[in-house]
């Protein structure tokens, strides 16, 4: 197995969150009564013509720019011809030789192209087969037909399934922060296919690739790619050969099946769509859109690590979660706590408290950015200890309030009066002579019962590190 490496490229279809469809003025919808968001255009009635949705084109340009692509000065739509009941015109309007965007990069993965097209309708098959072949009947819901899509194709720069998943999360977070899509995989607004091949390590040539279709969760993507890599390696090691094919991964059974082999590959007979004028965004428009782009995850992570000195893990969490990052920055702006302490609170205790309270984000909670800033400040200044801080945070999340006032009113401040604490430590050492001896002999772990005594005496309000310091000093260890 170590002899092989996988070469993975992704093809991602993202539904753009425009108000209306790509080429008609029907509203976008999900889960609506079938076929109510339709019109003669998206039903492919004779004589109808497509007209491009300007918002979709703008979202397309935003996306391409966010992915570092060059924008084609003049790109055209093509017709991709094939018969299927989910395709009302017998062709899909897509882009072919000149995509809207090309030659980009996101993270470590190069973007080959990004182009606009329309989504197909949704088919459901009645009967046991679950497929169109052998079904009792098939139903078509054209509500989805004509939804604007951007198709993003990467270069084959990914080498394993976990990285594919991670990169896809970065892409999702980037698109969400752009506001061009909600990228909901369960509802199909983000769909991913993977092209997978293997080769012996060091081999420059690419192997024969298979296409893994339509995996609808991040977990399935990782598992599906893993399974396909394993299948290919097993095949080659047994002396077999990988054939070009389109594969389907069944997450329930973990098995892979061939959907279509190469002999049945379509000839889509692409040709320029005569019903649409070329897309020719002006340089001014591109510059305007570029200037209005929000800070995207990749840039934010770099800034947090480089400028704010935030640890990498916390920076990545904040980079992917725009709402959390915004909350973090608002709290930071109030002063009183350091960036790395605050980032620790937001990505650690706060995230846990929100999860526990069943909140999707900090916006659902009662906590204000000034509340968090004050709380982190109290802990950083050792006015309260971290444990007390955590308890107050849980209250702030559910009820809100001012942590300073809470600490004062309830006397939760740390016992930081040096004399008082010193006296309690003396009593603790006297009460736990065996532990004191062990610590004095160099067994750090034995400090527990002594600290426990102090905490009991102070109702948990003593500053832990300070207590440890005092114990060691009194035992003559420092």
């Amino acid at each position, binding site marked *: 197995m170590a002899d092989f490496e996988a070469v993975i490229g992704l093809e991602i279809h993202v539904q753009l969150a425009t108000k209306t469809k790509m080429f008609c003025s029907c509203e976008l919808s999900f889960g609506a009564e079938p076929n109510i968001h339709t019109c003669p255009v998206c039903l492919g*009635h*004779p004589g109808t013509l497509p007209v491009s949705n300007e918002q979709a084109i703008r979202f397309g340009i935003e996306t391409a720019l966010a992915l570092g692509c060059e924008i084609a000065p003049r790109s055209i739509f093509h017709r991709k*011809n094939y018969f299927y*009941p989910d395709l009302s015109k017998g062709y899909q309007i897509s882009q072919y030789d000149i995509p809207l965007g090309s030659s980009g990069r996101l993270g470590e993965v190069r973007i080959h192209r990004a182009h606009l097209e329309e989504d197909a309708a949704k088919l459901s098959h009645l009967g046991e087969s679950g497929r169109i072949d052998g079904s009792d009947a098939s139903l078509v819901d054209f509500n989805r037909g004509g939804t604007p899509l951007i198709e993003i194709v990467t270069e084959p720069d990914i080498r394993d399934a976990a990285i594919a998943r991670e990169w896809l999360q970065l892409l999702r977070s980037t698109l969400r922060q752009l506001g061009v899509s909600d990228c909901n995989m369960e509802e199909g607004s983000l769909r991913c296919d993977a092209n997978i091949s293997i080769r012996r390590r060091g081999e420059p040539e690419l192997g024969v690739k298979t296409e893994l279709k339509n995996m609808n969760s991040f977990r399935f993507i990782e598992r599906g790619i893993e399974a396909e890599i394993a299948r290919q390696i097993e095949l080659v090691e047994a002396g077999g050969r990988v054939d070009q094919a389109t594969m389907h991964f069944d997450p329930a059974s973990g098995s892979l099946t061939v959907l279509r082999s190469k002999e049945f590959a379509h000839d889509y*007979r692409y040709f320029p769509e005569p*019903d649409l004028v070329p897309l020719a965004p002006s340089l001014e428009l591109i510059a305007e859109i570029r200037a209005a782009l929000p800070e995207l995850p990749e840039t934010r992570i770099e800034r947090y690590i480089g400028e704010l000195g935030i640890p990498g893990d916390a920076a990545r969490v904040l980079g992917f979660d725009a709402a959390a990052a915004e909350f973090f920055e608002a709290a930071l702006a109030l002063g009183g706590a350091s960036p790395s302490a605050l980032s620790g609170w937001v990505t650690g205790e706060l995230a846990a408290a929100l999860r526990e309270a069943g909140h999707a984000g900090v916006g659902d909670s009662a906590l204000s950015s000034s509340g968090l800033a004050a709380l982190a400040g109290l802990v950083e200044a050792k006015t309260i200890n971290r444990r007390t801080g955590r308890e107050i945070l849980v209250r702030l999340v559910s009820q809100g309030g001012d942590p300073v006032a809470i600490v004062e009113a309830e006397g939760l401040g740390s016992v930081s009066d040096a004399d008082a604490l010193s006296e309690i430590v003396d009593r603790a050492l006297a009460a736990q002579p065996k532990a004191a001896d062990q610590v004095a002999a160099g067994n750090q772990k034995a400090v527990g019962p002594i600290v426990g005594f102090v905490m009991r005496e102070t109702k948990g309000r003593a500053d832990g590190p300070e207590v440890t310091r005092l114990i060691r000093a009194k035992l003559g260890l420092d």
Partner: protein
Amino acid sequence: MSLGAELRALSLTEAIEQIRAGRFSAVEYGAAYREAAGRDDLNAYLEVVAVREGEQPDPSAPLAGAPIAIKDIFCTEGVATTAGSRILANYRPPYTATAVQRLLDGGASLLGKLNMDEFAMGSSNENSAFGPVLNPWDRDRVPGGSSGGSAAAVAGGLAPAALGTDTGGSIRQPAALCGLVGLKPTYGAISRYGMIAFASSLDQCGPLTRTVADAALLSSLMEGVDRRDSTAVGIPGGIAIPNRTDLKGLRLGVPRELAGEAEGIEAGVRAQFERALALCEELGAAVAETELPNAPHGISAYYVLAPAEASANLARFDGVRYGLRVADHQSDLTEMYERTRAAGLGPEVKRRIMLGTYALSSGYYDAYYGQAQKVRTKISDDFRAAFADFDLLVTPTSPSVAFKLGARAADPLAMYMSDYCTVPISLAGLPALSLPCGLAAPDDGGPELPVGLQIVAPAFAESRLLDAAHAIEAALGFDCAAVRREIGVEGARNG
């Protein structure tokens, strides 16, 4: 002479004037045509449409309530629209085409839907699923196509004016064969929304009328931008009603490839064309020969590009959402597609779908579609060069007068050559008008039949084109004898 016949002898413009003057009402005018159309023995009409409930003719509207008949390729809400095909035999569109709506908004009354070659593929109207249309000048002959029903209805006195569509000559050629004025505007002048597509980059709608003024009136109402068709840009400055009576200062070019040197132009057509040129000179035009070196390749390029686009445009007729479906409970998806399209589409349509599918196939695209696009560009360049020296170009519209029913039915190539002179203009997207310029006997003998003069203008120069046509029309004094005979007003002069 009955009142009805008297009304039907008028041109559309004359009738509107008289309605406004109170000589008769739009209701009487419409009734005269509905009554005549109901007795149609040319097979021009697929459906005569009754006056809509609550329809109130408005004499002050541009069309004053006049009835207009429409080629059955235009979608009309709730009114069957077949495109001459069995696959749409029972199709009732949920919307109305922009061009038709603009006429209705201009005060027209929808008179009926007219027969045509299936999906506008043909030059004789013999490719209709609903039977051939007869030429009112000689019922043994074709009216031309694909707007054959439109031409026969107007020339047969069954409609004052009709809408047609022109992809490679489908307005101009039938207008020529039936002695009418037929205008194909610049590509993009009139919205294509609601016009069932044959070849989207070529299709353009236009009027078939008895006079140039009528053609100008209808076109002026239909042209303009349309938010439902991004290729519709309208005509800058619109279309003025023509009134010119001379051609002074105009330079007319005669492209030798489409006139003098063209093979297959009948002697009678040639003679009438020469006579028209002499008349143009008398009217003050400077007439000289010019060239369009790539025009002879027009037919070859057209019969790659138009079928290629058609192969995609007609893919939607699959039996899934509307129209004919042939399948039983045993049928799978592929079988449904095959049986539906086998039964629903006629032989010429199938031939062109196959041609187009082949031309777009992987491995053949560059040799066919790509090459044809290059020819198209070269033809456009030829026209641009010619219009540097000339204001208008003139050619015969059709190489022959109306031919006998069945004469070319077995020979697709001979049929395709009917559009030899009109196709290059379509490829270049230019406006052109066919004007009746006299009668000539066919080469195979028989009574004299109309000959069309094709006048071609630069893009969006419709007003110049119509002005010149008006001057020639006035000087020629063409007599549309078929209309008089059909209506039964032999003594009177029409138009």
